[in-house]
C-alpha cells in the first residue's frame, strides 16, 4: 500500500506534463472558426490540390492532365463563348487552349495562380481565333434554341436575347482587343477587376480605363436599340 502511494506521487517524465505546469500562458483559447475562414481554407485546399496535380504532370505523369482539364473546361469554354459568341467555336477554342496548356505546363510557375494563367491562354486563343476569321460568324436569328437558354424564357424573350447577343458581338468589333477583353471578363463573365488585371497583365487602373471606354462605346447603341425593350419585356430582371 505504501509502495502504491509512492508510485502515484512520483512525477511522470512524459512530455505532456510540461504544459500542464503553466496552463494559462501556454494554451491560449482557440478562436471560433467563422464561415469566411472555412471558405478560405477550402479554396486554399483546392488550389493546393491543383498545384499538386500540376507538380505531378510536370514530373512526367501526363495522364493526370485530363483531371486538370475536367476541372476547368467549363470556365475555359465559357470565356471563349463570351469572346466569340458561338458554341461550336467555343468548343474548338477550348480544345486548342488545353493543347497549348499541355505543351506549356512545364513552364508554369507553381507560385502563381493556375486559373489566371489558364484564362490568359483562353483569352489569347479567342483573340487569335477572331483575328484568324476576321469577323464573328452570325447565325440565323430564327435558330434561337441555344443550349444555355433557361426554360423559363419565353420564345419572344429568347429571340430578343439572341438578337442582343448578335448585336453585342457586332458592336464589339468597334472595340480594340483590350477593351473587348475587359468588357467580356467584367460585364459578361463577372470577374473581379483584380483578377482581370492579372489575366490581362496590366494595372487595375488600366483595366478600369479600358472597361470604361468599352462601355462608353457600346452604351449609346445598346440603349438606343434595347433600352426601352428591357423594361417592357422584363428580360432585365431575375438574373
Amino acid at each position, binding site marked *: 500500500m505504501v509502495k502504491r502511494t509512492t508510485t502515484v506521487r512520483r512525477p511522470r517524465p512524459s512530455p505532456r506534463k510540461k504544459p500542464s505546469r503553466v496552463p494559462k500562458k501556454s494554451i491560449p483559447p482557440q478562436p471560433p472558426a467563422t464561415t469566411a475562414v472555412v471558405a478560405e481554407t477550402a479554396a486554399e485546399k483546392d488550389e493546393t490540390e491543383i498545384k499538386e496535380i500540376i507538380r505531378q504532370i510536370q514530373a512526367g505523369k501526363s495522364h493526370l492532365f485530363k483531371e486538370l*482539364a475536367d476541372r476547368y*473546361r467549363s470556365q475555359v469554354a465559357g470565356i471563349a463563348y463570351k469572346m466569340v459568341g458561338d458554341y461550336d467555336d467555343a*468548343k*474548338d477554342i477550348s480544345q486548342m487552349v488545353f493543347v497549348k496548356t499541355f505543351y506549356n505546363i512545364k513552364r508554369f510557375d507553381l507560385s502563381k495562380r493556375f486559373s489566371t494563367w489558364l484564362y490568359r491562354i483562353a483569352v489569347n486563343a479567342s483573340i487569335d481565333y477572331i483575328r484568324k476569321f476576321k469577323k464573328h460568324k452570325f447565325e440565323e436569328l430564327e435558330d434561337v434554341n441555344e*443550349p444555355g437558354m433557361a426554360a423559363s424564357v419565353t420564345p419572344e424573350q429568347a429571340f430578343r*436575347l439572341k438578337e442582343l447577343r448578335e448585336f453585342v458581338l457586332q458592336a464589339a468589333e468597334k472595340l480594340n482587343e483590350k477593351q473587348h477583353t475587359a468588357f467580356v471578363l467584367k460585364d459578361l463573365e463577372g470577374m473581379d477587376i483584380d483578377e482581370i488585371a492579372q489575366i490581362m497583365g496590366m494595372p487595375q487602373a488600366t483595366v478600369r480605363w479600358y472597361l470604361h471606354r468599352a462601355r462608353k462605346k457600346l452604351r449609346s447603341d445598346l440603349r438606343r436599340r434595347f433600352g426601352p425593350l*428591357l423594361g417592357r419585356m422584363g428580360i432585365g*430582371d431575375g*438574373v
Partner: protein
Amino acid sequence: MGCDGYDDLIDRVDLLEPTDRARLIEHAKLCPECRGELLESHHLRNTLRRAFSFAPDAKFWKGFYVGVRRLMHTRSDRAGKPAVRRSAR
C-alpha cells in the same frame, strides 16, 4: 440625359471608389432621371449576362478529349516530331 458630372459615373458605378459611389447613390436618391439611368444600366448589365449565359449540355462535351488528342497529333505531325518528345522538352 443625366446631370452634369454624374451621367459619366453611372456606367462605371461598380468601378468607382466607395466615396464617389456613395456620392452618386445619394444624388440618385434625389434625382429621378439619374435613378432611372442607374436602373437601366443595371438592367442592361444583367440582361447582357443572361444573353451570354453558358450552360453546355452533355452533347457539347461529347468527343471533347478526342478533339484535344487529334489537335495534339496534328501539332506534333506539323513539327515532324512525336508528341512525347515535344512534351519531354
